[in-house]
């Protein structure tokens, strides 16, 4: 296993996605962000091992070539088989495995990075916006909601998932698409367990789970028409300054400001 910060072995598994509006097969935006993060670490795409596990190769894979990838290894996995063992065998010995957070046109469960990390016994850093490597370790800037960012580190080898909000610096170029190539790689096949999921066409919006209520019609009407008071504090006495202090005290009490 190489632990060289200047030439780390980086594996990026990519999947094919569907266009969110037209449903046409195409590249997955999340996986393209993973490629972008990988590209930020090395000087050229030649140092990145891009891999796709699927039964049949699709036109959509060429889109990753258009983003600059030189070649993609396509693991020949039988239809219905589990792709994780094949990907894990391919990625064994890698310093970094960089994935998108969620597929866009497959099962879309976001489980593959976690199953890979578990199978290879690697730590996993989720939701990366930026990625850096030092000797023997990797660190990311993790996306948190409400404008917060967190720096976390772990030792390599490790799995990283790219957040959908990570910047996408790669440009789509048709010339690159013509130059790249796909290589088929034989994969040891483990038969997957039968999927517990059954797919059904979308005929209605999802129904929210709600508790059955036994209230009278009058009570329901009341709750629908009146604004329930929060029973908040009302300050109508005192000077303006006292009121301003009360607002700041409230913010401090709930840990909303730190001064």
């Amino acid at each position, binding site marked *: 296993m190489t632990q060289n910060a200047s030439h780390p072995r980086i594996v990026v598994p990519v999947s094919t996605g569907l266009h969110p509006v037209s449903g046409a097969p195409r590249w997955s935006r999340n996986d393209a962000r993973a490629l972008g993060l990988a590209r930020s670490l090395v000087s050229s795409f030649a140092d990145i091992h891009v891999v796709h596990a699927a039964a049949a190769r699709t036109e959509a894979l060429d889109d990753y070539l258009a983003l600059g990838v030189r070649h993609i290894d396509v693991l020949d996995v039988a239809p219905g088989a589990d792709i994780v063992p094949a990907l894990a065998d391919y990625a064994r010995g890698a310093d970094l495995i960089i994935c998108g957070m969620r597929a866009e046109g497959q099962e879309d469960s976001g489980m593959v990075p976690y199953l890979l990390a578990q199978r290879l016994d690697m730590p996993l850093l989720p939701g990366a916006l930026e990625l850096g490597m030092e000797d023997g370790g990797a660190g990311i800037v993790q996306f948190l909601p409400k*404008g*917060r*960012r967190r720096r976390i580190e772990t030792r390599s080898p490790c799995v990283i998932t790219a957040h959908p909000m990570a910047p996408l610096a790669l440009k789509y170029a048709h010339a690159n698409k013509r130059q790249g190539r796909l290589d088929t790689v034989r994969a040891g096949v483990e038969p997957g367990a039968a999927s517990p999921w059954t797919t059904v066409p979308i005929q209605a919006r999802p129904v929210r789970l709600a508790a059955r209520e036994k209230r009278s019609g009058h009570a329901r009407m009341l709750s629908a028409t009146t604004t329930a008071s*929060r029973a908040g504090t009302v300050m109508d006495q005192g000077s303006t300054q006292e009121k301003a202090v009360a607002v700041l005290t409230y913010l401090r009490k709930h840990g909303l400001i730190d001064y």
Partner: protein
Amino acid sequence: MSQHRRIDPRRPFVITALGRKRYALGQACLSGADAGAAATAPSDAGKPLRLQQPASSCILVAAHTDRGLLPLDAQQAIAAAAILAGPQCAVLLAAFGPLAEDAAPYGADQVIALADATAFQPDAEADVLAELRRQYRPTHIIMADNDIPDGDLGRRLAARQDLSIATHVVELTPDTATAYQKQKSVYARRPLSEVILLDAECVDARLPFAGRGETLDWAPSGNPASRYQDRGVTAVPASHLSLEEADFIVSAGNGVHDLDGFHALAGALGAAVGASRVAVDDGRFTREQQVGATGKTVASSVYIALGISGAVQHLQGIKDCRHVIAVNTDASAPMIKRADLSVIDDAQAIMRALLAEVGTARRQAPESGS
């Protein structure tokens, strides 16, 4: 003989503030009673307990708290567990991070507070959940599928313990979980899995019952070293964020004339700027800053409403805000009912006083950065 129901001429009524009789169907108060007594009938108190029998099984809900409170998605996960739970099934809440509020109204029967879990240590947290699972044998583990921290933790737990999992669940029934697949072009349905990660708005968190809310004294047996180092959280200033993502919003309505003072206050607080429809229509703010039904729906932790009366459309836009502070001259405005703290005064005066106080406070605590 007439088939019409006869109306009782002495049926219950209340006398309103205007001195008129008001008949309210179904209201059980004496005829002629005071209007105030009926209006202050408690709506939340006295919800029956869901769990009336000793529990023989449980559903585990794991959630991370945010500044001592349970976020909306965590409340929905608890509500989902409470709705799915049978008459002898308890809802066990494992709360990571400090918990300062009572989880019983959300439906939790037993609460285990793990107040020390504040840093990013998902492997240690997954170990804690695995230990809870061995000890309490929950039928399901329900969590919110926010990417980080809960969705991450649930996936780790399922991968490590080899549990069946349903992620991004958009429809939950007592038997099945449904999620989108193929880029939201088909539904995928399965029997309820051991780990269930719920998408936002999959559950109605309003419950007609309450949980027991007992605190369990439980601590994990080991203290395993985490493989991750947390180097701390930084915050992007709220003024650089879009309104939907901001955590601190100062909003102006028709009662604000001193725009310079208002923007100075927003800058001093490091808050994003919002506005009500009237202020936007007047041209004092841009359309992107409008909060409400026609504008943006915000979900900040703090929402300071200056000179906003609080039309229904505006309240709709701030329904997910955690702490609402209202400043208004009219004590009967709807915004005052919604707010957690209301100040009855002129917005201009309060803005000036608040700006001065914030300046003083920041000077006294210069080391705290931000």
